[in-house]
C-alpha cells in the first residue's frame, strides 16, 4: 500500500490530539506502522489544532504534505487544509460545522456526517462528535469497530460506565451512518493484517522510558514545550519505580539540584528546551568542571527568546556544542526517532557515569511530540555501567587524581572518603589551586575524556540505502524521518545519519563522504550548522544544502523535489 494520511482539525480544547492518538493506536493495532504529527499554537483554547497520522504497511517516519482523509470539525480546518486534498481524497465533515466546501478541489469525495447530531442522540455532549467521527472513519477505511471500542474503554477507564457506554454508542452511530449512507466509498485501508506488534510512542515517552530503563533516580524538570511531557510522563511513576521527580523554581535550580543528587550518587537528569537550557548553561559547565555525571535532554524549538514555542527546528546544535565559557568535555547525541531516543537515552546514563561529565540528548518538537511505531523496546535487559565508582574508603583518596584516560576515581559522600568537588580550578585532592602547571594538568585530564570516549564508544555513522549510490544525503537527529521516507523514491541516493555530534566521527565520515559524487546536507536550521561542523572536523566543504527554518519539519516530498529537480 502507499502511505495513507488521516488528518483531523478543529479548535484548540476540542480533543483533537487525543482523537488523533486514538486513530494512530487503532491503525497500529490493525497491524500497520504509524507516524503522527500535531500542529498547535501556544495557547489552550481557541486556536487551530490539527493532528495527522500517516499509516503504512512498512516503516513510516514523517508527515506528508497531502492528505487522504481530512476530518473537519470546523470551517477553519477546510479553509486551511483544502489544498492538501488531491483528487481521490476524502473530506469528512458535519454540515452544521462546515457550511462552505466550495474551495474543495474537484474529484475530492465529500462525505457529510451529522457528527454533532449523532453525538447528542447518543446521549452525550457535542464534544463526543470526535468519537462519532472516529467511528465513521473506521467504517470508511474498512477498519474493525471492536478495536475502537477497546480504545474507548481504555481511554475512559477511570470514568463512569455511563460515559464509556455513551462513547461506544457514539462510535457505533458514526460507523453505522457511514456504512448506510456511503457504502461505495469504503476502502480497506485499515483492514486488519498480521504484523508483529509495535509500540506507539513519542520521543518524550521514549526518553522517559529510556531513563527509567537506565536506572534513573532523580529528575528535575521545569515545564517548557516541547519537553514538558517528559515531566508529565515521569511524575506519576515515582512511587512505582522509586525515583524522585522535581519541578523546581527555575531551570537554574533544576540543573543544580540534579548535580547535587548526582554528586550524592543518584543517576540524575534534567529536561528542557533551548530557552531553559540558556538558564542551565552555568550548570552545564559546573557539571563539566566538577566532573559530575549528568544527562541533559534538550528539546529544540525555533527562534531565539520565546520564538515559536510549539513548532520545530534543529538550530541548537552549535549552542550545545559550545555553551558555557572556556572548554570542557560534553557528549552530544541526537537520536532520529523514538527507538533511537530510547536506546541513546539509556546509553547516556552509562556514558555520563563512565566519563563523569554531562551528556546531552538533543531532541526537537517534531521528535518529542510525534508518535511513531517503535518495534523494539527491550523491557528488561540493560547493563548499568558506573565507570570508576569507588565504594570503599581509600587511603589518600583524591577526587581528581591524574590518569592516562582522563577519568579519576569517583567516591560518593558518606563513603568515609574526603571528597571535594570544586567549581574553582582545583588540584588532584579538589582544593582550589591556580598554578599554571596544575591548571594545565587538570585541563588536559578533563579534555582527554573526549579522546577516550571516541576510542571506546564512538560508533561509525550509519548509512541507509545503496552504499554505491552516486548521491549522498547527510543529516543528523530527527530529519532522519522525512529523509528515510524519501529514499524509496530516490534510487541512486543513500543517506548518512549522524547521532553522535560530540565526539564527532570525523575519521569514519571522511571516506564515506569522499566516495560519493554529490553530497547534500539537509538541516532544519538557517545556517547549516552540521555542514560547518563537517568542514571544521573533516576539511570537506559541502556545496549543497537543503535548509528549512520556518518552524515546520521537512516533508519527504520536498526532499524528493530538491534531489530530482
Amino acid at each position: 500500500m502507499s502511505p495513507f494520511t488521516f488528518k483531523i482539525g478543529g479548535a484548540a480544547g476540542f480533543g483533537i490530539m487525543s482523537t488523533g492518538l486514538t486513530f494512530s493506536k487503532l491503525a497500529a493495532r490493525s497491524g500497520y506502522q504509524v507516524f503522527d504529527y500535531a500542529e498547535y499554537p501556544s495557547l489552550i483554547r481557541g486556536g487551530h489544532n490539527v493532528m495527522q497520522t500517516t499509516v503504512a504497511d512498512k516503516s513510516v517516519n514523517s508527515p506528508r504534505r497531502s492528505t487522504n482523509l481530512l476530518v473537519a470539525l470546523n470551517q477553519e480546518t477546510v479553509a486551511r487544509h483544502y489544498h492538501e486534498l488531491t483528487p481521490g481524497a476524502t473530506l469528512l465533515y458535519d454540515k452544521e460545522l462546515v457550511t462552505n466546501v466550495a474551495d474543495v478541489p474537484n474529484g475530492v469525495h465529500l462525505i457529510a456526517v451529522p457528527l454533532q447530531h449523532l453525538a447528542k442522540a447518543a446521549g452525550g455532549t457535542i464534544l463526543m462528535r470526535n468519537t462519532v467521527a472516529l467511528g465513521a472513519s473506521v467504517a470508511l477505511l474498512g477498519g474493525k469497530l471492536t478495536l475502537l471500542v477497546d480504545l474507548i474503554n481504555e481511554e475512559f477507564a477511570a470514568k463512569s460506565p455511563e460515559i464509556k457506554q455513551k462513547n461506544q454508542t457514539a462510535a457505533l452511530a458514526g460507523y453505522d451512518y457511514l456504512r448506510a449512507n456511503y457504502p461505495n466509498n469504503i476502502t480497506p485501508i485499515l483492514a486488519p493484517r498480521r504484523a508483529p506488534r509495535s509500540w506507539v510512542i513519542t520521543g518524550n515517552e521514549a526518553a522517559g522510558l529510556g531513563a527509567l530503563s537506565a536506572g534513573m533516580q532523580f529528575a528535575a524538570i521545569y515545564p517548557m514545550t516541547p519537553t514538558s511531557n517528559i515531566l508529565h510522563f515521569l511524575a506519576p511513576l515515582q512511587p512505582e519505580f522509586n525515583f524522585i521527580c522535581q519541578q523546581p523554581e527555575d531551570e537554574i535550580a533544576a540543573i543544580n539540584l540534579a548535580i547535587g543528587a548526582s554528586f550524592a550518587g543518584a543517576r540524575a537528569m534534567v529536561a528542557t528546551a533551548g530557552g531553559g537550557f540558556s538558564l542551565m548553561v552555568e550548570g552545564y559547565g559546573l557539571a563539566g568542571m566538577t566532573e559530575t555525571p549528568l544527562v541533559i535532554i534538550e528539546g529544540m524549538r525555533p527562534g531565539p527568546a520565546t520564538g515559536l514555542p510549539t513548532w520545530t527546528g534543529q538550530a541548537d546544535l552549535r549552542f550545545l556544542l559550545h555553551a558555557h565559557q572556556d572548554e570542557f568535555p560534553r557528549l552530544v547525541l541526537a537520536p532520529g526517532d523514538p527507538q533511537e531516543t530510547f536506546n541513546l537515552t539509556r546509553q547516556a546514563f552509562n556514558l555520563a557515569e563512565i566519563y563523569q561529565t554531562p551528556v546531552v540528548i538533543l531532541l526537537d518538537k517534531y521528535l518529542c511530540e510525534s508518535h511513531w511505531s517503535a518495534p523494539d523496546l527491550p523491557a528488561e535487559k540493560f547493563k548499568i555501567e558506573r565507570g570508576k565508582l569507588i565504594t570503599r574508603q581509600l587511603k589518600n583518596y583524591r577526587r581528581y587524581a591524574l590518569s592516562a584516560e582522563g577519568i579519576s576515581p569517583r567516591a560518593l559522600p558518606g563513603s568515609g572518603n574526603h571528597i571535594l568537588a570544586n567549581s574553582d580550578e582545583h588540584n588532584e585532592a579538589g582544593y582550589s589551586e591556580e598554578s599554571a602547571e596544575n591548571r594545565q594538568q587538570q585541563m588536559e585530564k578533563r579534555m582527554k575524556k573526549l579522546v577516550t570516549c571516541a576510542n571506546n564508544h564512538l560508533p561509525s555513522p550509519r548509512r541507509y540505502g545503496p552504499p554505491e549510490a552516486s548521491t549522498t544525503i547527510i543529516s543528523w537527529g530527527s530529519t532522519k524521518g522525512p529523509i528515510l521516507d524519501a529514499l524509496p523514491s530516490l534510487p541512486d541516493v543513500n543517506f548518512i545519519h549522524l547521532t553522535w555530534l560530540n565526539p564527532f566521527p570525523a575519521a569514519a565520515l571522511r571516506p564515506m563522504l569522499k566516495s560519493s559524487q554529490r553530497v547534500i546536507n539537509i538541516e532544519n536550521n538557517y545556517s547549516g550548522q552540521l555542514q560547518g561542523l563537517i568542514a571544521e572536523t573533516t576539511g570537506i566543504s559541502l556545496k549543497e544544502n537543503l535548509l528549512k527554518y520556518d518552524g515546520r519539519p521537512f516533508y519527504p516530498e520536498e526532499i524528493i523535489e530538491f534531489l530530482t529537480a
Partner: protein
Amino acid sequence: MDSLTAFATDNPCTWCPGCGNFGIWLAFKEAAVRQGWNNFNTVMVAGIGCHGHLLNFLGLTAFEGLHGRPIPVAAGIKMANPKLNVFVFTGDGDCLGEGGNHFIHAARRNHNLTVILHDNAVYALTTGQTSPRSPRGFKSKSTPEGNPADPLHPLPLAWAAGATWLARAYAGDLPALTELIIQANQHPGFAVIQVLQPCVAFNHVYTHEFFQKNTYLVGPNYDPTDAAAAWHKLQEWGEQKIPLGLLFAAKKPAYEDPLPRLTKNPPHRNLTPLLRRYR
C-alpha cells in the same frame, strides 16, 4: 580530637586577620567535633565569595558550587541521601543577590538543610561593592555616593517564605554560634543562621565594635515558637536593638519526609507492565 586541629588541611588560610569567617569556621569545627560529623555522615556545600574558601580549610566532604547556587545543590544531595547532614555555607551576595530565588523556594519547601549565611553586608571577594545587605547610604566602590536602597532582611524574608527555624548570631561569639549550629542541624526542616560577620577590609560600618555594641541575646523568656511575636522580633534592627539567638522555630514536615528513598545503586527495572500502555 580538639576543634582547633580537627579536619586540618595543608592549605594556608586566606582570610584577612580579624575576618568574621574565622569565628564561623571555628564554631562549625567545634560543633562537628562535638556532634561527630565526619566523612561518613556529613556534606558541606558552599557558593562563591570569601565564605566559600572555608571548604579548602576543612577536611570534610564538600561541594563548592557556583555563585548563588549552593542551596539547590544541597537540596539535591539531601533528597538523594537524606541520611547525610547537609550544611550550606553562603554569603549575603551569594544567597540574597544571585541566589535569592533559591533561598525563597527552599524555605517554602522546607528542605531539611542548615543554611549558614555569612552576612558581612558587602561584596568582599570582588574587593568591596555594595550588597543586598548593605545599609542605605553605604559607600562602596559601586556606590561612591552611598547605597541608594534599603537592605534586605533575610530572616523575615525566610519567615514569610515558610522557613521553620531562624536564628541570628555574631561571628565573634563562638559558644553561642556553636550551640546554634548544633541546634539548626537537629531541626528537621529549613534552618537559617544569619551570622553577623565583620569584614575588616571593606565594611567599616558593621565592625566588631558595632556588633558588640548593638546586639543583644534574646533571653530565656523569649518564646521562638510564638510565630506572631517572632515576626515582630525578626523586624528589629538598628542601634542597640539587634536581637541574637533562636528567634523562630516551627514544626512542619520536612520536604524530604514523603519522598521516595533511593536505593544505593540504580535499580534494574522491568518496564513490561508500563509498556502495555503504549500499544
